[in-house]
């Protein structure tokens, strides 16, 4: 039981992507313009990651060593297609906002990285917890980056205006270079806390 909890919580702080586990930077930069998008992207990844971890773990004894990467990619791609179709059908605004980054989950290094580093070596139940933890951790970090970018860059939060009326948004943060700078600064601040390596 304690190991289950441990596998889950490590994704939320100790190995939180993309800060501690520097993977999956592209969506972290592109889908963090608003908290809404960050949450949507994070949820999509959590679903893909949990399901792919589940299947990779179940099939880990059947998949031959030499072709394992190809097999993992096919498994991940299957769930990405599911996410793509579901968002297109039920969450169309999100589908438009995330655009090409939904199919791009397939090349998100987190999904493949977890399959290779964790799910292919561990029992099913731990792999699910690992997927959930890492996925939710990713959602949290995306929302944190998005919080700064939306609040300071647009003066809104989750689409609602909350800054005072005379507030001048720093539109730099909404643009592409702002994403890099914002993520870089946050990463630096994160390193301030417990860099126990």
């Amino acid at each position: 039981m304690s190991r289950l909890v441990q596998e889950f919580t490590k994704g939320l702080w100790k190995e939180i992507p993309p800060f501690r586990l520097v993977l999956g930077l592209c969506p972290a930069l592109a889908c963090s313009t608003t908290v809404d998008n960050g949450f949507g992207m994070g949820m999509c990844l959590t679903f893909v990651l949990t399901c792919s971890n589940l299947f990779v773990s179940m099939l880990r004894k059947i998949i031959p060593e030499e072709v394992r990467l190809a097999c993992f990619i096919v498994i991940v791609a299957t769930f990405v297609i599911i996410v793509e179709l579901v968002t297109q059908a039920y969450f169309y605004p999100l589908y438009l906002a995330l655009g090409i980054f939904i199919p791009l989950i397939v090349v998100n290094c987190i999904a493949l990285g977890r399959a290779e580093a964790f799910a292919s070596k561990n029992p099913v139940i731990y792999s699910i917890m690992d997927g959930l933890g890492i996925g939710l951790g990713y959602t949290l970090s995306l929302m944190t980056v998005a919080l700064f970018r939306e609040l300071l860059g647009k003066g809104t939060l989750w689409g609602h205006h909350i800054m005072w009326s005379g507030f001048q948004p720093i539109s730099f943060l909404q643009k592409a270079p702002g994403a890099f700078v914002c993520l870089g600064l946050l990463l630096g601040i994160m390193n301030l806390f417990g860099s126990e390596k």
Partner: protein
Amino acid sequence: MHNEVWTFSDYIMLVISAIFINNILLIRFLGNCPFLGTSKRMDTAVSMSLAVVFVLTCTGPITWFIQHYLLEKYDIVYIQTLAFILTIAVFVQLVEMVIKKISPPLYRALGIYLPLITTNCAVFGTCILNIREKFNLMQTIVFSFSSAVGFGLALVIMAGLRERFNFARIPKNFQDTSIGLITAGLIGLSFYAFQGLVK
């Protein structure tokens, strides 16, 4: 865009826009993991750029053919993601084997970067963009090539800057990835100056 006849200057515009204005790395945010991973040294950055230019220029048209003559013909566009990623993976594997056989020195230079390209979102992303922008074959080739050149350009600039970091006194917490991201942001800002170039 399919029906319009593109003149030569339109293609030039496409090239400039793909390299400078909508730079795939800095403005479109594709391929950032290899960008930060291989930009620490100039020689790795150059090898990675060359590998991406080669693979992308080939996979762009290949995925275009697959989309138009396979997926659309048999009405299975929904497996696009799966089909494209498999194509890229197979192609990269093939190239790796061919290079290993024909030119061992080249293999030593590019070898370890080739497998990384499979999960490089710049390659996969450009293939998807080609389809979403409804490019025809010629435009696909030009766009794939110039996107890859844009990737290489940003990577080489970044590597040049990062080599200088060894002599700079950076606060401990901001070393490595953190300062890399901030630098990328500043390079991206300078690329914004090209924005007015094409309407």
